[in-house]
């Protein structure tokens, strides 16, 4: 990807990137001559493609950590087999940087944290159905249902909303 400031005929430079929100990220580029800024929006599929290739917008100065893509992106991995890279960073810092992962991967692709409920209420019936989803896919299913509910203007997650949201994730419930 290259960006040209048409006015100055100058190659624009990467300035900043936001963490994903609703699966989409925003990258800001600036003209080094006139300081004009532009924003590039990547839709969820484009963001996911970059993530799948383990590439970082704006580049990276950090050497890749062993199996960093697998460890950060495999949802169904067992905990002792896939130590969390961000947890290791914190541990390393606490121990004076001895952890080999102190300078770990960028968190560029971690979603901005959203409040647990984000104004959405779950009915008891919906919660019971959520509990029936296998544990290893439940967080992803919950996120998919809440995302669907917000996108479609629901304030309460009911069994009917869950039925409508089925297409957003692979779990059956």
């Amino acid at each position, binding site marked *: 990807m290259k960006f040209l400031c048409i006015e100055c005929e100058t*190659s624009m430079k990467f300035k900043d990137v936001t963490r994903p929100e609703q*699966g989409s990220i925003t990258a800001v580029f600036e003209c080094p001559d006139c300081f004009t800024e532009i924003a590039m929006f990547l839709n969820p599929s484009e963001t996911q493609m970059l*993530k*799948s290739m383990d590439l970082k917008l704006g*580049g990276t100065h950090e050497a890749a950590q*062993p199996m960093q893509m697998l460890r950060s992106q495999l949802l169904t991995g067992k905990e002792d087999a896939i130590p969390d890279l961000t947890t290791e960073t914190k541990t390393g810092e606490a121990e004076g940087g001895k952890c080999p992962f102190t300078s770990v991967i960028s968190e560029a692709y971690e979603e901005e944290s959203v409040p647990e409920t984000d104004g959405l209420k779950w009915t008891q019936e919906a919660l019971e159905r959520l509990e029936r989803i296998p544990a290893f896919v439940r967080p992803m299913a919950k996120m998919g249902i809440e995302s669907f509910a917000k996108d479609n203007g629901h304030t309460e997650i009911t069994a009917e909303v869950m039925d409508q949201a089925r*297409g957003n994730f692979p779990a059956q419930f």
Partner: protein
Amino acid sequence: MKNYKDLPNDSGSNIVGQVTAQANRVKERLSSVKYTIAVMSGKGGVGKSAVTANVATALSLQGYSVGVVDADLNGPTIAKMMGVRDSTLEYTSTGVKPATTTLGIKVISMDLLLSEDDAPVLWNAHSQKDAFTWRSTMEVSALREFIGDTEWEELDYLLLDLPPGSERLANVVELIPSLSGVVVVTIPSDVSQLIVKKSVTMARDVLSVPIIGVVENMTYYVCHHCGEREPLFSNEDSVESTFQFTLLGRIPFDPRLSQCNDSGIPYIEQFPNNPASEAIVETAQNIQNYFNTQS
């Protein structure tokens, strides 16, 4: 106005540099591996993984240092077949220490990472909808990390057990341009050979990968009572005439091979003097011969 080629770089992300760094990591890791071999068929159910596990064991018993990559990310079986399914991977600053069999064969498999027996491979994504657009890219990245981040150290042979599908080899060749060759596994049936031929064409004519030879699996059945050999399939064309490559071995069917796969002790270790083991040893020997001839 300037065009794409007039601009010297990609506005700061250095995507080409990032991809090159990934490729270099694989290249560097494999610099201590003498021969990298893909075991493929294109067709499922011909016994690729069992052949891979047993040929790896045969090579190891002959004194070679061996590693196995289970490249079938969605249907991993190698860890179970080689008895390392309960191993825990150890992460260091430079890589991941693989599982190691009692013979010292190094193994990496998705099976070592998944949380439960019934856990499928699921990737983190805002939505799993339209996952078909990025899932295979994610899988290639995972395979790249398996190959490039596992601490193989010095190896004589690194075997890659590929999943079915002729396009899988193309992914491997992208990751390992220096792939030493391909071992093709088939069974003596028209249906199998119809599909395997496509994989051979892909390997030889499209990807220009050397084909080490063909293994014919489940060629015949040896009666345990009278020792008579009975064919399992009715294909009249010999595998040599169909593929016109070196026949590395004809491995007879033995139901105990399946039991060994389940128990995690390779058949060749448990029944070293049986006809199937002899055929597997011959296959391993022919692979060595191929490389001896090449050098």
